[in-house]
C-alpha cells in the first residue's frame, strides 16, 4: 500500500496495550497530536468502528460515499473499508473501536454472524439515523461503556464492556431491521456470508463462479440462487462488484500506476484490465481516478 495516501491503520491502544477495545471522543480525535496518521486522510482500518454523533453537522466518508452526520447519526465501519473524517469544530461524538478478537471470539457462531451483519455494507447502508427515543437508548449504552472504560476500569471492566458492546450492536441491528434497512433473517444468509468472505479473500486469484462453487461444495446453480436471494444479483455480478470495489479503492486511495493496480488485482495483461474496468464502470480507470 502507498504510504503517502492510504494509511493502513493497525489497532493500537497506547494507554492499555492489552485491550482489544478502545474508545474516544470525536472532538479529542481531531486534537490528538500523537496519532501516527491524520484522521482526516483516507485510511483503511483493521478493526471495527461504531461512530455515534451527539452534536453538530458534518460528513463521514466510507469508501465512495459521503454520509451526512448530525445528532443521532450512527455510522458503522467494518474492517478493510476506507473512511475519512470531515473535520468540524462543532461535531461531537463517540468513537468505539474494537478488533475481531474482542467480540467475535466470545460469541457463539450465530450471535457472531448477526453482529457482523450490522457492519456488512452489502446487507444495508452503513449509516443509521436514530429517532429521538432510539438515540437516548443508544447514548445510554455508550455512556455506560464510557464510564466503565474511563472511570471504573478494573479487572471486570473489559468483560462488562464486551457485553455492553454486544447489547449495543444488537440494539442497532434491531433498529435497522425494524426500519427495513437491513437484509436480515433470510434463507441462505449464512451461505451468502460464506460466499462473500470467500470472494473478498480470493477475488485477486479468481473471478470464476465455478471456483467459488467448488470451494463451497455447491453447484453454480445453487450459488446463483443464494446470491440472487440476498443481493438480487447473479453470483458473477456479485463477484464483479467486489472486484470492482477493490480496484476502485486502489485507484482512489493509492498513487499506484494503473499497470501496478492491474497486476495487484491479478490481471495478467493490462489491456484485459482496461476492458474489464470499462465494462464494469463504463469509463477508463484514469477517468474514474480523476473524478475523485
Amino acid at each position, binding site marked *: 500500500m502507498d504510504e503517502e495516501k492510504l494509511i493502513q491503520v493497525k489497532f493500537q491502544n497506547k494507554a492499555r496495550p492489552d485491550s482489544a477495545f478502545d474508545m474516544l471522543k470525536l472532538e479529542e480525535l481531531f486534537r490528538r497530536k500523537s496519532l501516527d496518521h491524520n484522521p482526516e486522510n483516507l485510511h483503511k482500518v483493521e478493526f471495527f468502528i461504531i461512530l455515534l454523533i451527539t452534536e453538530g*453537522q*458534518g*460528513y463521514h466518508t466510507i469508501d465512495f*460515499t459521503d454520509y*451526512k452526520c448530525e445528532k443521532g447519526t450512527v455510522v458503522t465501519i467494518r474492517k478493510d473499508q476506507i473512511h475519512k473524517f*470531515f473535520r468540524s469544530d462543532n461535531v461531537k461524538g463517540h468513537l468505539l473501536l474494537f478488533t475481531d478478537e474482542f467480540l467475535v471470539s466470545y460469541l457463539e457462531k450465530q450471535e457472531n454472524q448477526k453482529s457482523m451483519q450490522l457492519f456488512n455494507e452489502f446487507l444495508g447502508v452503513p*449509516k443509521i439515523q436514530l429517532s429521538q427515543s432510539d438515540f437516548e437508548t443508544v447514548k445510554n449504552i455508550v455512556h455506560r461503556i464510557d464510564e466503565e472504560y474511563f472511570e471504573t476500569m478494573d479487572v471486570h471492566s473489559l468483560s462488562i464492556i464486551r457485553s455492553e458492546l454486544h447489547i449495543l450492536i444488537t440494539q442497532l441491528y434491531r433498529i435497522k431491521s425494524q426500519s427495513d434497512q437491513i437484509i436480515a433473517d433470510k434463507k441462505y444468509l449464512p451461505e451468502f456470508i460464506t460466499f462473500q468472505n470467500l470472494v473478498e479473500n480470493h477475488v485477486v486469484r479468481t473471478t470464476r463462479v465455478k471456483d467459488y462453487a467448488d470451494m463451497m461444495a455447491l453447484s453454480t446453480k445453487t450459488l446463483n440462487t443464494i446470491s440472487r436471494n440476498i443481493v438480487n444479483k447473479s453470483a458473477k455480478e456479485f463477484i464483479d462488484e467486489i472486484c470492482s470495489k477493490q480496484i476502485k479503492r486502489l485507484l482512489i486511495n493509492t498513487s499506484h500506476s494503473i499497470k501496478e493496480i492491474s497486476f495487484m488485482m491479478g490481471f495478467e495483461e493490462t489491456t484485459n484490465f482496461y476492458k474489464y474496468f470499462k465494462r464494469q464502470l463504463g469509463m477508463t480507470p484514469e477517468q474514474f481516478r480523476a*473524478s*475523485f
Partner: protein
Amino acid sequence: MELTNKEKAVALLNSFNTGDQTPISYINSQKYIQHNLAVGDGLEGFGEVMQHAPEGGFKANVVRAFQDGDFVFTHTEYNFFGPKVGFDVFRFEDGLIVEHWDNLSEITPPNPSGRTQLDGAVDISDKEKTSENKKLVEGFVNDVLMNGQSDKLTTYINAEKYLQHNAAVADGLDGLGAALQYFADNGLVMQYDKVHSVLGEGNFVLTISEGKFGKGDHVAYYDLFRVENGLIVEHWDVIEVIPPQEEWKNSNGKF
C-alpha cells in the same frame, strides 16, 4: 493539517453560531468579491454585516455541502433577520475564499407533498458521475426550463419518482404540470433566460440561472437537483428577486 475548502466553508458558516473568529481568516482579506447585492464588497462588507447582527447573532445550520473544483456550494438553514433558506457559493484561490454568491428566501411551511425546502437526501455518492450528471441537469434546464420543450421532460426526470421541495409544488411530473398550468392560467411567468453556472458533486447538481418569475420580477434561480441512475429524482430551489441597480451595495452583479 490543512482543512479542505469544503471544511473551511462549513466552518465559516458555523462561526455564525459560535462567534469563532478563526474561520474569518479563510477569507482573502485583499480580495473578496461579494455578489450578495445587499452587502458591501470585500472583507469590510462582511464585517459590517456581522456587526449589525441582532441580539444573539445570526444562526446557520449547514444541511448540505459540496465541492466542485475551486468552488464550494452549500444549502443552509439560516436565522438571518428571520428564518431563511439559502444557497451559498464560495470560490477559492490558494485555499482562501475570494468570491461569494448566494440566494436567500424566507422559510415557508411544508409544500403540498409535505416536504420542506431543506429536508430530503443528504448523502453524496456517484462521484465518478459528476460531469455526466452536470450535463444531464444542464440539458434539462436548457431544453425544458429555458426552451419549453416539455416533450423532453421524461428524458430528464424520473416519471415514477420526482421528489419536490419547492414550497408551492407537489411531487412528481403531475405536480410540476399542475404548477405550470396554474402559472399559465393566472398570467404568471416562470421564465429562464440564461444559465450562469452549473456546479456538481456526485449525485447533486446546482444550477444558477437568471430569468423572470411571478408577475415578471427579475430573479435569480438557484436549483439543486439530485440525480439517480441518469435521471433527476429530487429538486430544491431558492428564488430571489434581484434588486434594481441603484440599490446595490457593490458593483459586482448578482452572477
